[in-house]
């Protein structure tokens, strides 16, 4: 028996642990990752391996520098998740150095500069993606046309390595604009939606993911499935995804109703870009989102509104990453102001006033002489 130290209660604990949670997240992402690799082949797999490895290696190096024990921190899986999420938001055939710079940036600047696990203000994967987008706009907007594994013209393993480490021979032949980028460009040219949603962009298989974009963009439906799995297993709660997707849906429906030619509809906004990935896997990052339920609803609504605003009226075709980062910055403020009501107190912290009329029998007797 351990009598060395006085141990306080409780003397039992819920089963869940951080490592377990991260395992569930990887499981929920698995279908989308598999589908993405199927669509874009070996170079996409190479990219994911590179981002995950560079995130894990830089995490290890930072822990070593900080003198923290490696095992418990590496086993929590947060570096793997950050690397994976980053890889899912990059153009699938990105060169190796994009993945390395992103992975290292996410862990070193996004996490350990702030003090490591639990201390970072911004979501590391989104911070890295945004840094890459601003620094390397060309590489970060080169969207490959899907070339499913085994289809004619799809690169084999060696060809895949060449694409990742040397480069793509004839880039214009295999790439084009993503759906959001295409629509944004068309609007700047004064076209309407019925003009642009033609040809390959009118294909109903868009919703199923056969579309140019990052791995985390193309398989919106599979990501939705993974998100629902996390909700069902209570790894995440509904507040952020529902408020974020709900806000986008309401805004999209409203403006689409006002002007259907210039404002795409609800399904376009929900299924394109990083909306699903953002709502279920990125905005729900516990470290960088508010800790109260009410705060989470506000946070989600803010992410949704900002993403819609940036997509619709901003300079970039996609706004989820910026929206999440902006709301990350607002999280300490939300946590400070949106506190739960304390038992026996009003919202402002003063004690409740007892309600004497609640028990008429008691009052009746009091009135008796």
């Amino acid at each position, binding site marked *: 028996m351990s009598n060395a130290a006085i141990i306080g209660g409780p003397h039992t604990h819920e089963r869940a642990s*951080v490592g377990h949670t991260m395992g569930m997240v990887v499981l929920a992402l698995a279908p989308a990752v598999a589908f993405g690799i199927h669509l874009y082949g070996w170079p996409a797999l190479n990219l994911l391996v590179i981002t995950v490895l560079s995130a894990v290696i830089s995490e290890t190096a930072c822990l070593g520098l900080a003198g923290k024990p490696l095992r418990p921190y590496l086993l929590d899986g947060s570096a793997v998740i950050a690397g994976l999420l980053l890889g899912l938001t990059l153009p699938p055939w990105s060169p190796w150095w994009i993945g390395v710079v992103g992975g290292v940036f996410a862990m070193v600047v996004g996490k350990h500069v702030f003090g490591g696990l639990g201390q970072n203000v911004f979501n590391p994967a989104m911070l890295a993606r945004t840094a890459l987008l601003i620094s390397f706009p060309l590489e970060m907007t080169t969207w490959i046309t899907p070339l499913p594994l085994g289809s004619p013209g799809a690169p084999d393993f060696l060809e895949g390595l060449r694409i990742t480490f040397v480069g793509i021979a004839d880039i214009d032949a295999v790439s084009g604009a993503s759906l959001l980028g295409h629509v944004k460009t068309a609007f700047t040219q004064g076209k309407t939606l019925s003009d642009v949603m033609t040809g390959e962009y009118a294909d109903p298989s868009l919703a199923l993911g056969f579309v140019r974009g990052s791995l985390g963009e193309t398989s919106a439906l599979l990501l939705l499935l993974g998100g629902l799995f996390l909700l069902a297993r209570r790894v995440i*709660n509904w507040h952020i995804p529902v408020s974020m997707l709900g806000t986008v849906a309401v805004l999209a429906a409203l403006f689409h109703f006002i002007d259907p030619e210039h404002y795409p509809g609800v399904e376009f906004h929900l299924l394109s870009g990083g909306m699903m990935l953002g709502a279920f896997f990125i905005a729900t990052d516990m470290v960088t989102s508010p*800790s109260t339920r009410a705060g989470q609803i506000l946070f989600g609504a803010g992410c949704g509104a900002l993403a819609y605003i940036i997509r619709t009226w901003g300079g970039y075709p996609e706004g989820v990453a910026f929206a999440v980062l902006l709301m990350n910055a607002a999280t300490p403020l939300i946590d400070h102001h949106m506190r739960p009501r304390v038992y026996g107190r009003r919202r402002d912290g003063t004690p409740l006033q007892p309600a004497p009329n609640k028990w008429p029998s008691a009052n009746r007797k009091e009135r008796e002489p």
Partner: protein
Amino acid sequence: MKVFRFRGGVHPESHKTPSATKAIEDLPLPERLYVPLQQHIGAPAKPEVAIGQRVYKGQLLAHSQGMISAPVHAPSSGTIVDIGEFTAPHPSGLWVRTITLETDGKNRCGKNRWHESAKPTDPFKMAQQEVAARIGAAGIVGMGGATFPAAVKLALGKERRIHTLIINGGECEPYLTCDDRLMRERAHQAVDGIRIMLHVLQADQALIAIEDNKPAAIASMRAARRRHANLHVVVVPSRYPMGSEKQMIQSVTGIEVPAGQRSADIGVIVHNVGTVYAVHRAIRLGRPLLSRVVTVGGGAVREPKNLEVPLGTLVEDLLEFCGGYSEPPARLLMGGPMMGQVLPHSRVPIVKGSNGVIALSTAEIRSRPAMPCIRCGRCVAACPCGLMPVEMAPRIRNGDLDSAMEYGLGDCISCGSCSYVCPSNIPLVQYFNYGKGMLADRREAQRKTEATRRLAQERRNRLEREARARAKAAAQRKAEKATDEAREKNSPEVSV
């Protein structure tokens, strides 16, 4: 009856089955009983007996002293062999003043039992104060573990109008089944105790709140209350901390106790099932609080049981009666695993508030090293008081007590729900208990400073007063002297 929801809470695995199926057994009388003089909140009792004295069962060993205190009686007959220090059932392992009684195995009762006037009478023909006084004299305290003297709580009914007496049969702590068994086996006695308490409080109704994981207890209490229209059984959901007074009041009445007030201020008094049973025995049978039902359980106990145990029995005697350990226990607790206290060893006595002796195996405690907070907010969702443990703990760690107070440290009930759900295994409730201790220290220091200042001021005032009085006296003397002199000056002429 409508049940209301309290915020937060957790669902720990109940582990009640092993002992819930066991009827209450009497523990054989041990050879020695160690009866601490402080088994309650308040001032310790003062011994009335001497070493070597023979005592009968139920004889007063120590009387209560002060406003909040409770007397202690001899759990069995025998000889007082020591009045000294003995390890308290507390994690510190510190000593508490204890009377050691060598039992003679005869369980002799005295002629007059425990009190001159305590012949069993009809309590409903007695004045409320007299019944309350008898409950106090029987040494009854809150048997749910709070150990607040029951008579003091009943006296609150005199000053305030109490409309509802809530009987706490929640027993939300895992492993514990002593209240469950009591309600199943002794429902009529418990109902009688409730009626006596209603009479003392002059309350309108009693609500017997039982968690829905105890269907047998619910059925038995329902059957026992059938002929009493002002008694109701309320089935509440099984959710920890249902048994906490504030949460229980909210669950069955929908009212929150305003911060800084007591439940009596809103017309509600809560008593534990074990307490009302003890009241029944004290008033109807003239039997003071001499024993209690204790659950012996946990994965490291060979044969979990519910035992009726004389107060002062050593924990090791209970464990031995239950077949000893099946594996070396990782932790030995008094009380449940959520709020129970670690025992330093098993040579400590059972006291009035001991509802369980739980020996947990290593697998059960799921002890893991603490990791950094990931701000997941589970503690905020779990807190039944609406606090933000995620914000309070780092502030206390940095010594910023004022800021932690602003987040509601003073409203924390130390239920441990936050620590239970924390995926990083941060001992949150320990931070809060530490913070509350620091605040108490600070208040104490402030009180001392103020007392010192007041004393110093009083001394200055006194010295000034004395100086003034001296000066006045001197002036008076001088004046008198002057008159005398004047008289002397004049007198010769007169006298001559």
